Structure formats: structure tokens, C-alpha cells
């Protein structure tokens, strides 16, 4: 059973059009072409205003495999899922799907806010293709998975968005499809529910071929057997998840502001240990987990600020603060207006693998005034063997004791 070829995608391309009016007009013409049997007869040609949202995509997927699709927003991930789901049709190429397709895409499709959770379970289940007998059998299962026992007879409009998503997920995950499409749904709910979802997906993995779209690289690393990086609709790196994640992270670096002057304070150089100069500021610095992070900076500060303190912050891709450190007020940098040089060391950096942004703050030690803040001075790419959930990966030891 495990060798069943369930998904075969051959040289698939899809055009889209940016302008609304033009797009509607092309829609009408495509419909006319469909009615006259002309559509898809000629070669793929782009009309004015059109672009290829997907360009020559090919892959195969067997039962038990999970393909992670990664890429920036607008790279074509969701378009590809729509094609696989049969919602829209390719403009070139061929897709063959064997068996039943299920999607964890739109959670709670067909929910009506005025109806109760129980009534909506039946609507949602029917939309997803379950029979009434299946629904009756699985109702208790669904309610307990969603952890909504007390609220199931309340109208769905009284639910929080998290509760709604939980109910939607609980129904959708009762499907037992041959091909499972997952699009960003695991961003919902609290952490414990997310882990529960991930567990249910892992159980489904061996029975299905799974295509998984997410921006969370830890999830890709955990569940996917293979991955594909989409770059502007084309296939980028493909293969084992770890190498694809690294290629994605290297491209998906947060935009670094070029060194700039803020109110007379300017950073003229920011170089990590071992880097050659001059360095392009937008290439992330690679550093292994638990290595020392050493940053040399050169800056100029107006001479009236005699004593200057620096501070460094580390933020993740969503601009959540991870940690920071600051120079002590009693040991400031002495400033004369000439270029100041400083070496900042963060020993044994215990970040999980991923891309982070390093910020630099410049304060006056005498007044405490913030002179300048460089919100994305440089990006760093932390490498490591173990994908982790939380941004901090503690140094630790686990030993058996008697």
C-alpha cells in the first residue's frame, strides 16, 4: 500500500491577471473558449497583464509521503493547492490525483454564525463530503476533540475565533482522505491545540499523501519527508526538508536597513567575527547553536554626548523580541566625536535554528537619552541539528539517575 502513487503533477503552469477588470474580461473569454471547446487547444500564451503564478511545476507523491511547500507570500503555494484540489484548472500540464482529496484549508466552511455548533458540524461535514451516518458516528469525537462540550448548543457567533477554528479543524480532521492538503491552518489556536493538531496530522501521514503549506519551518522539519521551495511560481530547491528550509531562510531574510544616520548618529560598519569586508548587509551571518556571537561595530556619535552605551536586541521573523543585552552605565564608551569602535560578544548563543534580526541601540550614558536605534542592523541564521518549537534552545543535559 505504501507505494501507491497518489499525486502526479506534470509541467503544470497557471496564469493569473493582476487587473480586476481585465481579469473579469479574460474570465468571460475563457468561458466562451470552454463552451466552444477551443480552450487549452493552443500553446500557453500570456495575454496583456497576465503573469505565470505557477511555471512548469512537476512532482510526484506517494502514500506515506509528506511534501512541504515553502516560499514567500505570493510564491504560488496556495495556487498550487487550489489546482490540486480541483478548484481551478491548470493552463498547461496535467495533474492526476488518485482517491479522495481532503483539505485542511478553509476551516469551518459553510458555518453560519446564527446556528449552533452542533448544527454547523453537520453543515460543515456535508460540505467536506461526509455522509449523515458518518457524522452521527463521529459527532462525539468531534466535540471532544474541539474541547467544546459546554458550548456545542450555543450559536457559533458567540464563539471566539480560536473556538471556531478548533471546531472547524475537528470536523475537517475526521475526514480520512487519500490526499491531504494543509494550508497554514496550524497557525490557529493555542500551543497545546496546535500540538494536538500536529499529532493528528502525523497519524494521518502514513495513510495519505500530504501536501503541507506553512511558514513555520519547525513544522516542516517535523512532519515533512520532502520539501519544495517555490520562488515566484518556479521550483527552487527541492529535496530533504533541512536543505530546503535553509535555502528558504537564506532568501526570506527580513529586509535590513542600510547603515544610516539617525540624528547625527551613524553606524558605518557592522561585521561579525570571521566575516570578510566589505560585507553586504542583507546577507545573514551563519552561526552554529552555542557558538559565540561576536559583532564589531563602528559608529559616530555627536561629540556633545561624552559617554555612550550600546544595547543589542534579537528579534524573530515576526518581529517578536527574543532577548536583549545592554552595556553597563558605569563602563560606557568614551566619545570625542571621532569614530567609535566596539566589540560586542554574546557568548554561547542559545537560539533555536532559524533567522533572527539583530538590532542596535545607542544611548547617552549621562542623560539616558536614546540617541539612535537601528531596528535591523544585521540578520543572523542560526544552524543546528534539532528543530525546536520555542525560539530559545537551552543548553541542557538529561541523565538517568538511580
Amino acid at each position, binding site marked *: 500500500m505504501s507505494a501507491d502513487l497518489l499525486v502526479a503533477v506534470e509541467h503544470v503552469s497557471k496564469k493569473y491577471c493582476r487587473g480586476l477588470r481585465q481579469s*473579469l474580461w479574460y474570465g468571460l473569454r*475563457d468561458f466562451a473558449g470552454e*463552451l466552444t471547446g477551443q480552450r487549452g487547444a493552443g500553446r500557453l500564451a500570456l495575454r496583456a497583464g497576465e503573469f505565470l503564478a505557477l511555471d512548469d511545476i512537476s512532482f510526484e507523491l506517494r502514500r506515506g509521503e509528506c511534501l512541504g511547500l515553502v516560499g514567500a507570500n505570493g510564491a504560488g503555494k496556495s495556487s498550487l493547492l487550489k489546482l490540486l484540489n480541483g478548484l481551478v484548472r491548470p493552463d498547461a500540464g496535467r495533474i492526476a490525483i488518485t482517491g479522495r*482529496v481532503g483539505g485542511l484549508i478553509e476551516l469551518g*466552511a*459553510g458555518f453560519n454564525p446564527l446556528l449552533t455548533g452542533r448544527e454547523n458540524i453537520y453543515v460543515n461535514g*456535508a460540505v467536506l463530503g461526509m455522509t*449523515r451516518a458518518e457524522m452521527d458516528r463521529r459527532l462525539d469525537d468531534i466535540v471532544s476533540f474541539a474541547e467544546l462540550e459546554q458550548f456545542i448548543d450555543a450559536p457559533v457567533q458567540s464563539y471566539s475565533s480560536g473556538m471556531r477554528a478548533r471546531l472547524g479543524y475537528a470536523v475537517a480532521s475526521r475526514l480520512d482522505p487519500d490526499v491531504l492538503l494543509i494550508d497554514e491552518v496550524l497557525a490557529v489556536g493555542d500551543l497545546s491545540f496546535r500540538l494536538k493538531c500536529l499529532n493528528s496530522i502525523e497519524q494521518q501521514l502514513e495513510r495519505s499523501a500530504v501536501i503541507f503549506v506553512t511558514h513555520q519551518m519547525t513544522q516542516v522539519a517535523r512532519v515533512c519527508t520532502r520539501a519544495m521551495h517555490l520562488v515566484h511560481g518556479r521550483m527552487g530547491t527541492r529535496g530533504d526538508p533541512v536543505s530546503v528550509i535553509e535555502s528558504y531562510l537564506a532568501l526570506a531574510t527580513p529586509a535590513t536597513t542600510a547603515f544610516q544616520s539617525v540624528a547625527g548618529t551613524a553606524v558605518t560598519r557592522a561585521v561579525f567575527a570571521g566575516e570578510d569586508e566589505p560585507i553586504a548587509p542583507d546577507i545573514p551571518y551563519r552561526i552554529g547553536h552555542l557558538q559565540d556571537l561576536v559583532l564589531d561595530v563602528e559608529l559616530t556619535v555627536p561629540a556633545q554626548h561624552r559617554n555612550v552605551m550600546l544595547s543589542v536586541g534579537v528579534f524573530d521573523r515576526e518581529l517578536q523580541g527574543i532577548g536583549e543585552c545592554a552595556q553597563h552605565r558605569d563602563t560606557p564608551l568614551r566619545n570625542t566625536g571621532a569614530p567609535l569602535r566596539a566589540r560586542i560578544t554574546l557568548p554561547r548563543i542559545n537560539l533555536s535554528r532559524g533567522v533572527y534580526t539583530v538590532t542596535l541601540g545607542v544611548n547617552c550614558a549621562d542623560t539616558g537619552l536614546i540617541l539612535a536605534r537601528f531596528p535591523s542592523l544585521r540578520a543572523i541564521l542560526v544552524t543546528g541539528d534539532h528543530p525546536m518549537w520555542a525560539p530559545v534552545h537551552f543548553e541542557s543535559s538529561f541523565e538517568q539517575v538511580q
Partner: protein
Amino acid sequence: MNETGHAARATMVTVYTAESRLRHPRLLWREMRRDLLASRELAFRLFVRNFRARYRQSVLGYVWVFLPPAAGTLLFLFLRQAGIFSVADTGVPYGAFLVCGFVLWQTFTDAVQSPLRMVSQSRAMLTRVNFPREALILGGLAEVLVTFMVRALLLVAVLAWYRIVPATDAWFFLPAVLVLVGTGIAIGLALVPVGMLYQDVENGLALALPFWMLLTPVLYPAQGAGPGALLMNLNPVAPVLDTARAWLLGGAAVHAQGFYIVGACAGVLLLAGWFAYRLALPILIERMSA
């Protein structure tokens, strides 16, 4: 959950290419019949959902189903009584004539608007879930028919009020209503492909319906001769509505022949509309999903 289930399903291969689906009409027809069967459960759920939710946030509830024909009837009865508006002899009490006309006209407008409304309100679902698309049309059809049955209570009440004993032909009233609904759904279905792309269709329909009613023998008896008769011949709803009403209330249908012609045309249009709907949806979804 079980291996045999997977093995059975695994034989089903779905292929998507750019080619027009009309190149393989036999395959298309097979898929259409399969999806029609598969859509019954969902159609029922959508109908129950819409019907329950429609009046849940209202005090008067299902009274709203009766209000439009009742209000229209009372208004025109008053206008005629007051001599503001005069109408030729209808052969039956004017109140019964009006209620029957309004109920039938309302049922037709429900039917003609139903496909576009159902598809339009399901945009989010359509762009994300692949369900049998026939369910939207069937669910809408069920809503139209059940709403008609509820309104039919008003008809029963009016027949009792005027002590009208339905003629023996009255049993033909129900199939005539089905033809009326079928005509409405067929026209509505044909509007979906363009109507989902351009809002103009829905706006135009909303504008046209009140005028269309005035051109249909709802308030006045059908015209057998003169310029009025030409109007009846061009208006597909006129013979169907007039014949249905004549069968229920007694009296001669002026355009019984037109009824059968329209019925046959509606059947053909319904089938053609179904094909067009199937072919159009992937294209429409592509343009919907912004």
C-alpha cells in the same frame, strides 16, 4: 479509517488539464450525474441551514414568508375598491385571483434569483473546498419549493374564505408550479456564469423584476388578443403563471399551448444551463479568488 476503504477509493483517478471539458462530453456527463447524486446530502444541509438561519434573528419569523403576497393583495384590493385602479373581470373573486397571482410570482422570483444568490453567498466555500457544485442549485431549489409550500397555506386559507371549491383540474396546479420553478431556475442558472463575473447582472435583475411583474398577468387577467397578447407571447412567465392559476381557481387558461412550449424550452435550458454552470465554475473561482 480502514484499508479496504482506501483500496476501493484508490481506483478513482481524477485528471485535471487545460483542455476544454466539452472535448470529452461523455466523461463530463458521467461526472455530472455522479455529482448530482453525491450532492443530495449537502443540498439538504444547506437548505436546512439557510431556512433555519433566515428567520432566526427576527421576531416575526416565518410570518415574513406570508407578508409580501398578503400585503400586495390587500394593497391592490384597496386600490380597486377605491376606484383608483380598474381591472377587467377575472371570473373569480379578485382577492383570490391576486393571492394566487402573487404567490406564484413570488415563487418565480425566488427561483430566478436562487442560483446566483446561492453561488454568490458561497464564494468563500467555493474558493477553498471542492464539493459537488450541484448542491448549491439543489439546496436553493429545495428552499424555493418549501417556501412555496408554506405560502400555499395562504392559498388554502383564501380558497376557504371565498368558498371556492377547486376544480377537478386543480391537481394539475402542482406540476404547473414545478414548471414555473423550473423555468425560473433555468433562467437563473443561465445567468450565473456572467452574473458571477459582473455585478451588473444581479443589479439588472433586481431592477427588471418589478417591471417584469407588471408585464405578467399577476394583477390582471391574461389578454387573448390585441397588443396585450403579443406581450404574453414574448413573456415566458405569462402562460405558465396564468395556466397554473386557471387550473387552481377554475376558468379557462388563455395560453395553455404556450404553457407546454415554455415547459419544454425550460427543460432544454435547464440542461444547457447545468452544462454551462459546470464548465464555468472553475473559471469563475479563478477570478473570484483575489
